[in-house]
């Protein structure tokens, strides 16, 4: 099996931090519900691209950072992203064999699960009302997946060639 060129971990971290910035970028009112799960997408991407180096640990650390940035209960996102990265590692073998559209559907399922757990944790740790719009970000993210993964693969290839 031809292994993809090894990406330095620094690049992984930088891209994840960039995703964190996108996650808190101010959006106009009413558009916030449509914000894609940038950090979730990025974590899934790296779990698929470098499964032996990016896993639960990265999910946990970046989840903690996310908690600090969003001001949610410390550990809440850490728990969610740990589960997300674990699930990603679990489906990794079949994920690689899938076409881009099938991958999108799988991303939808993964991020949808993560959002659902987030809703549960939120009702546990604070006053909150549940409504179905919490699924919109995962739909948008799944829609973005093919473009994002193709773009990142192209960038990686260019970096490897240079």
């Amino acid at each position, binding site marked *: 099996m031809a292994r993809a060129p090894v990406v330095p971990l620094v690049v992984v971290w930088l891209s994840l931090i960039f995703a964190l910035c996108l996650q808190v970028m101010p959006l106009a009112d009413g558009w916030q519900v449509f*914000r894609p799960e940038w950090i979730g997408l990025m974590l899934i991407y790296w779990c698929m691209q470098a499964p032996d180096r990016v896993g639960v640990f990265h999910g*946990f650390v970046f*989840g903690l950072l996310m908690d*600090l940035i969003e001001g949610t*209960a410390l*550990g809440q996102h850490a728990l969610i992203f740990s589960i997300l*990265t674990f699930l990603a590692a679990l489906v990794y073998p079949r994920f690689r064999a899938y076409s881009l559209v099938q991958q999108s559907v799988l991303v939808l399922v993964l991020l949808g699960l993560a959002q659902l757990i987030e809703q549960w944790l939120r009702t546990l*740790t604070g006053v909150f009302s549940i409504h179905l719009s919490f699924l919109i970000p995962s739909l948008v993210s799944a829609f973005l997946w093919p473009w994002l993964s193709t773009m990142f693969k192209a960038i990686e290839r260019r970096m490897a060639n240079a």
Partner: protein
Amino acid sequence: MTASANPLYRLVAALVLSVIVIVLDQRTPWAEPVRHVLAYLTAPIHYVAYLPVDSGQWLTEQAQSRSSLMEENQRLQRQSLILEQKVQRLAVLEAENVRLRELLNSSADLDANVLVAEIIGVDPDPNRQELVINKGTGSDVFRGQAVLDAQGLIGQVVDAGPLSSRVLLLTDASHAMSVQVNRNGVRAVLAGNGQTGLRLLYVPDTADIREGDLLTTSGLAGRFPPGYPVARVTEVYHDPGQPFARVVAEPSAQLQRSRHFLLLFPPPREELDASIWDESMDISADALHAAQRLGQPASPAMQEER
């Protein structure tokens, strides 16, 4: 590959760890200092994330035409003239107020100090209404501090980091505060509805609250200083089937549009008279202060609208 066995152990470890962290954070005060230190790490991310908005604003400012700038300048000059004229009268009124208060032997209202802060981020979560501002404990910001804009109360500081702090807006679903009607001093509890509006809770059908009434901070509970405008009543609805009237209000402050805020530092507490204060009484100093304040005939803000 051993990767199939490894992640499960790691997941269990991560889950246990995060549950411990959540419990520590929610149920004990120990996580507060940790959060404080880690905030140094995350403050730059807020700055970077707000950069596009900032630079966009800078560009529009740079690209403004000379005529529109001159127009704005004239408008501001007119406005400052009007405000100065009002301040002239205010100085006289304030002096008179202090004299009258001295006659009545009650405590004087001191001017509060303010600190100007700028927004550097909004909460990305559509279900919570929080702002991040660029002042933290380094500028003596503290938890529970009142935050205003030019038109009225915005909210309060809920989390003060070293370089930035989080402000909970009035309209958040978890925010409630004590207010009074400026016209007649009726007190009520004002709660956010989680969107852009506010509502008054537990208002009896007979209470004298009308559309257009200005609600000001009552100063009860000692969290917000008294006399600052909070909201205006937009709708009063009496449903015969409900025990309480439904009163909807709209914040006076520009919650969604303001970029600069004032953080209010309360004036230092004056000592209570020894004759009033008795150690045997099981009442907090805050409650006594509030009671004293209510005992005063009328606060200056109340007469404003007459």
